[in-house]
């Protein structure tokens, strides 16, 4: 495995030697990835390669079998999603993880509700905040009082994105954030990623669109059958190189082809 990036000091996130298996299936098999501040790292791979599982260990959803996670060089103890939030890790899950029966504001603040001085949830304040951020992300969004089950796929995705960016994340995980979005909304997310990157966030972006990855990411890590094929600087490779990594498991730098 080649580390193509010159030494840039301590990474924001370092996931070393991560493994997890589900009843015999090695979903993630000794994978190491890292992420620097102000950087977007693309995670690529075929369906079932283990991308979502890898980042779920960072977001606290899964406990790894092996591996260490370091944040700013220090070993991080992430045992559940609350721990991850404490490290300012925010996640847009592939499944969106929305409670369908609640409205956008309740979902956005789920687990972190705004409360009145008496300790009661302050729905009006939360709705006001939600209106503000949605206005920035998706000005067409109007359904603030409907349960999210009444929203379109893209509108639901906007709510999930809003939740991830509202709470001043330092580390942002986006698992196929534009899968349900139209071209205009996809462009808005691309702009958002550029803006957050400029603010110094580190972003893991899972996306099947190689073209999009070439455009938005600084580096790309490719996985195949739970293993890491390699990590490359996007500037050094072509679309076809990335496709060869994904499909054949061929590392464009070493020329090595992964077994299996």
């Amino acid at each position: 495995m080649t580390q193509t990036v010159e030494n840039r000091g301590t990474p924001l996130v370092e996931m070393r030697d991560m493994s997890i298996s589900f009843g015999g299936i090695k979903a993630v098999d000794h994978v190491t990835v890292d992420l620097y501040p102000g950087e977007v790292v693309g995670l690529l791979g075929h369906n079932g390669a283990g991308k979502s599982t890898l980042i779920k260990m960072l977001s606290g959803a899964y406990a790894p079998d092996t591996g260490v996670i370091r944040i700013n060089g220090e070993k991080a103890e992430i045992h559940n999603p609350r721990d991850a939030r404490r490290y300012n890790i925010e996640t847009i899950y592939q499944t969106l993880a929305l409670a369908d029966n609640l409205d956008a504001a309740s979902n956005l603040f789920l687990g972190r509700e705004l409360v009145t001085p008496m300790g009661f949830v302050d729905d009006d304040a939360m709705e006001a905040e939600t209106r503000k951020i949605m206005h920035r992300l998706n000005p067409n969004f109007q359904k603030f009082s409907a349960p999210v089950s009444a929203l379109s796929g893209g509108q639901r995705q906007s709510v999930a994105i809003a939740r991830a960016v509202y709470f001043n994340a330092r580390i942002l995980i986006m698992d196929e954030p534009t899968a349900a979005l139209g071209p205009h909304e996809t462009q808005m997310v691309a702009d958002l990623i550029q803006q957050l990157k400029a603010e110094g966030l580190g972003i893991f972006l899972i996306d099947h669109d190689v073209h999009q990855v070439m455009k938005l990411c600084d580096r790309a890590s490719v996985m195949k059958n739970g293993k890491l094929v390699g990590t490359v600087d996007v500037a050094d490779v072509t679309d076809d190189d990335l496709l060869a990594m994904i499909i054949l498991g061929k590392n464009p730098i070493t020329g090595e082809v992964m077994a299996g």
Partner: protein
Amino acid sequence: MTKSAPSSAQAKPSLFKSLEIDTRLLGMIGAFVAICLVFNVITDGRFLTPRNLFNLTIQTVSVAIMATGMVFVIVTRHIDLSVGALLATCSAVMGVMQVQLLPQFLGLGNPLIAPLAVLAGLLAGAVIGAFNGWLIGYQRIPAFIVTLGGLLVWRNVGWYLTDGQTLGPLDKNFLLLGGVEGTIGATASWIAGVLFSVVAIWAIWRARRAKIAHAFPVKPLWAEGALMAISVVAILGFVAIMNSYQVPLGRLKREFAARGEVLPDGYTEVYGLPISVLILIIIAIAMTILARRTRLGRYIFATGGNPDAAELSGINTRLLTVKIFALMGVLCALSAMVAQARLANHTNDIGTLDELRVIAAAVIGGTALAGGIGTIYGAILGALIMQSLQSGMAMVGVDAPFQNIVVGAVLVLAVWIDIQYRKRTGEKV
């Protein structure tokens, strides 16, 4: 839990739209009124008498109290089949405390007996409920199994606590919690009615102010006023009914005789609000606030809507399950308290089949077994509808087996209507 839709959607909002009254609530009230009217006609006006309505309310209380807790259980996609059995165990604990244990130490009639007995029952309910919740949440045994087992276990634990005996007579103060023995009289009832009215008006007003403060759309002022008027009329109307049920002459004579006095000519007295109904109202308000205005309530509904999402949002859904079932246990104990006091003793079969009544009340009240949806007021109305059906049929002289057939059919029918309603409004079925 969704906030009601803003009324600005249509150019000319309909009457219900402006009032933003839940149409499902209206439907249930409509069903209740229809049942009352039909039975009133069949019984030649005996159904809608203050006396019958008074009895109807005090008979509803026990099931209604538990139904409020069942809403949370079902909303989180669980079920509790053990509530009737748990009620029996809590009732046995309270019975043993006040009839056998406490009088030995405190002496018969000591004013501490009732509160201590109640406390012991509440504790038993909370501990058993929490234990159920632990088995379900942490050990991952399905709630259906845990509480099916609990149904057998707790009814018979109750049996052993009392050696199968009926316990009585109960403490005199304890009896006040039941119904007929414990009413607060005319004046206090009016005061309570006015207090509740003020609270209702204040709540509507405060909600409006909060919306205005955030520049959200609000209902027209007349609609807000109409809502306040409806609330006040409903509250004071209920008080008026309870206040027009007169204490029978024979009973007054006995009471006066017991005090060594003679009943003056032309003296009358009314019952007023039963203490058990006040307890139910307070529980209903507390549970509604819990559901809508606290984090715990928000987490309950979020977990019901999508357990994975709740977990990924950092909600400890296992502990949440323990809390929900512990709360259910406490409500079973409160229910046991009211039921035992109303029946004036503890019997082994107390609360038999209540699990079915409680689940039916919650479901008739619009709680969806798929999870995530349900209201406290719906469950209470559901309990009231069931009880009015049962009382009405008993009054008409319908055979007991046929009563059960009707109640069973109504349960299925109510859920079917609810599904049709949800299809039309586009809600999740």
